[in-house]
């Protein structure tokens, strides 16, 4: 059983026929070579595979590909496609929030979604939002710093 899909990824339209049981993570990684979407737990717990679907962060490992029909998807590759790091990526690097990097793509995309909803989140909001993610390397302190720094950069860009 397969389904024909039309959807946009990082600004590019795709029309594909995909197996009904295919996950969004496998679609992005195996068919579109967007391997920045990392699969960790494969059970929607760790958040490493997070991508933005119509602006909402979703766990691509636990989302069927057919749910992408007519969606506008952004993966980590879509953030720096102009050859320039975006403010959240820059903040993660500057804050030392990246160690092994396996959780980074999902975190960065999730922080984008957070800062779009709430441009100046307090500490409790940041901690609650990032509960959808696991980072086993950093101890999170640098990631919390990165979110605050990213909020500042986005304010500067908007100003």
């Amino acid at each position, binding site marked *: 059983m397969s389904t024909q899909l039309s959807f946009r990824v990082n600004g590019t339209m795709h029309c594909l026929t995909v197996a009904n049981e295919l996950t969004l993570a496998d679609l992005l990684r195996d068919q579109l070579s967007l391997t920045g979407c990392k699969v960790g737990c494969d059970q929607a717990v760790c958040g490493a595979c997070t991508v933005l679907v119509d602006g909402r962060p979703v766990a691509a490992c636990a989302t069927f590909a057919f749910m992408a029909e007519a969606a506008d998807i952004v993966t980590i590759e879509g953030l720096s496609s102009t050859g320039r790091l975006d403010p959240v990526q820059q903040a993660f*690097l500057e804050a030392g929030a990246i160690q092994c990097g396996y959780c980074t793509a999902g975190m960065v995309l999730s922080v984008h979604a957070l800062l779009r909803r709430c441009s100046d989140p307090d500490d409790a909001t940041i901690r609650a939002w990032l509960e959808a993610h696991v980072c086993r390397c950093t101890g999170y302190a640098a990631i919390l710093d990165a979110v605050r720094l990213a909020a500042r950069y986005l304010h500067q860009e908007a100003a």
Partner: protein
Amino acid sequence: MDGIDSRPHGVAAFPAYLSDKATGRTVYAFDVALPGMLHGKLLRSPHAHAWIRGIDTSAALAMAGVAAVLTGRDTADLPDPFYGVGLRDQPVICTDRVRYVGDTVAAVVACDERTAFAAAEAIVVEYEPLPALMTPEAALAPEAPALFDHPAGGAMLAVGAGSTSAGEPEKNVLCEYTFGYGDVAAALAESAAVYTDSFGFTRINHFHLEPHVNVARWTGDRVEMWSCNQDPFVIRGDIARIFGLPLHNVCLHTPAVGGGFGGKSYCKMEPLVALMARRADAPVRLGLTFDESVLTSTKHAAILTLTTGVDAAGRLTARRAEIVLDGGAYADASCTTAIKTGFRIGGPYRWRAIGSRARVVRTTCVPGGSFRGFGGTQASWASERQIDMIARSRGIDPYDFRMRNFLAPGEPFAPGDSGMDSDLGAGLAEVAEQIGAALPCPPGRGRGFAVGLKDAGGTGNHAQAILKVTQGGEAILSAAVVDIGQGAAGALCRIAAETLGIAPDQVVYARIDTDHTPPDNGTHVSCGTVVTGLAVEQAARDVRRQIVEFVVTQLGCAPEAVVLDGWTARVGNHVHPLEPMIRAWYGGIGWEFIGRGAFKEPYDAAAPLRSKNMCWMPCWSAAEVTVDRETGKVTLHRLVVGADAGRAVDARACHGQIEGAAIQALSQAMFEELRYDGAVPENATPRLYRVMQTPDLPEDFRSVVAEHRMGRGPGQLKGIGEAGMLGIAAAVANAIQDATGACLTSLPFTPEKVLAALDAADSRAE
């Protein structure tokens, strides 16, 4: 930088290996795909302990898309199909018996993962169950069956003066290590008080986000592997031995590694993947699921019983330690863990006598293996908990008690070993200041301190490095330290740049493959910046020497007259840019100066571990808690953790290492544990296995990077990667006792356990 301008917001440029992680370009072992690659899946044992009486693979083999099905029979023609560190008892795949839930019974190779998975499900195995031995106590019982019928291959690791080691000394005991000096019995007899306490340490999983992944490809008799492993040369040796190949017919490639913490140390399923690829006659990828990764390796659960004496002046006298580690089903790194736990049990203090015995007992649980700070974490938990309990019992402030008993800088940890290379008192004073110890604890809160300690750098360790520098001063550094996120690549590039006198971003860290990369013993024991760092420093000096020689031949000056400054040679008042001089002489594509460096720490039979320790790694920890008397819930308000980098090559990376390790340890202290329900893992899946996340963090969490300038690495640096693990659990338990009197002696500090300890404290008070 691949066209990425990494400084639009104004601060520093970042090396590509970091910025690629931010942009999703980094290739992990998980991402490796080869043309014509097939996919593997494993069938795992549902039994903790059973004979395999028969395996019917016919239905699986008949499925479309299945290329091969392997069982233990397929290892019959391998010359030595077992692996492990020191003692080798783990089969490449089970032959006649399974020894834990999750043991590998069969392997399928198919066109894709779903076909391989379906085929694995179609394999029928006939088991004859045997008694499960889920604890060391059960495995040591007289009626317990022996888990192995034949002696393990390999040999127990050798040790030095004051230590003994033995492999398989009795039924179901994998190994035994003893360590000591002085007359323990006499020192305890002369003590003003002697305390005996037992401490429990739990089993946790590494929970690295990238599960174990391997890809293998054969070309004739030569095999290449792309592995998430952090020990490329160890694996090369294991594959060569297991398959009977010369070393140069095995090549390990090391792509980026998505977290390790020891879970990707030493041989895991690499030989099986190589065997699957050989049988299928095609490249094969085996990507474990996260659940399977959890069933691959754990930190060792342990029970540590310490008998410790103290004199009338509040000075520690002697300690006897009886340590039992749960090794699980196979050896993995258990032999080393026994040694490191027994050796480290005295902690950062001065003793008249020490006598420890550490034994690893085989059980039918997930194999215990390498895990960040192993041995040191177990020993520091028990030791620092008991030190606090003794101080409180003697009516001495636990902080003062520690200060009174610390080893002084330069004082040997044990006879024949190296001197303490940190100022232990200064480190503790700094975390005390950070937590606000100058002020009284707020009402209802308790404060606890702990000072963990381990050795670092390895035993008789060695490493080599090659540094290639072009005419333009662009440098490529090649060494086998795997950057698993700890920042080793960046630190080593900085060491090379410092020595060469060029900017750090002019040095790139080469990809690792065993055909081209100079060897080391693996990315372990916080050795990268020290052991490999010294080799890198030497390689950079070698390049400098070659450049000076070249300048001397070009300018006809004396070598002493040449000053290298940036990428110029200054002679007297004249500045000569190097690039045109090199281009003019060599022509063609230009030239590379190739520097070589090597370091080897000599063996020394007079040292307890057969080599003097390279660095001491203290972990100064301070915690402030409240405890809810009604529910037993512990709230951690403040946590300060400090470690000594000797000299911080990259302060931000040092903070990251300390904080990351501390939160892993805190997770284990508060709730994390891999539990069994009878013979079956109860929570070996990410939905049930909980690790620390952002809402769990203490309100105030900070790290301290001390720079005591006594290290042996380049510019007096020391390793720091494991330090943050060591003191946390004890500091939190000590704070709980300070707040409430509740005396916790096992991890984790769940509300149930805290309530029981509170009740026990109340009944003691009555």
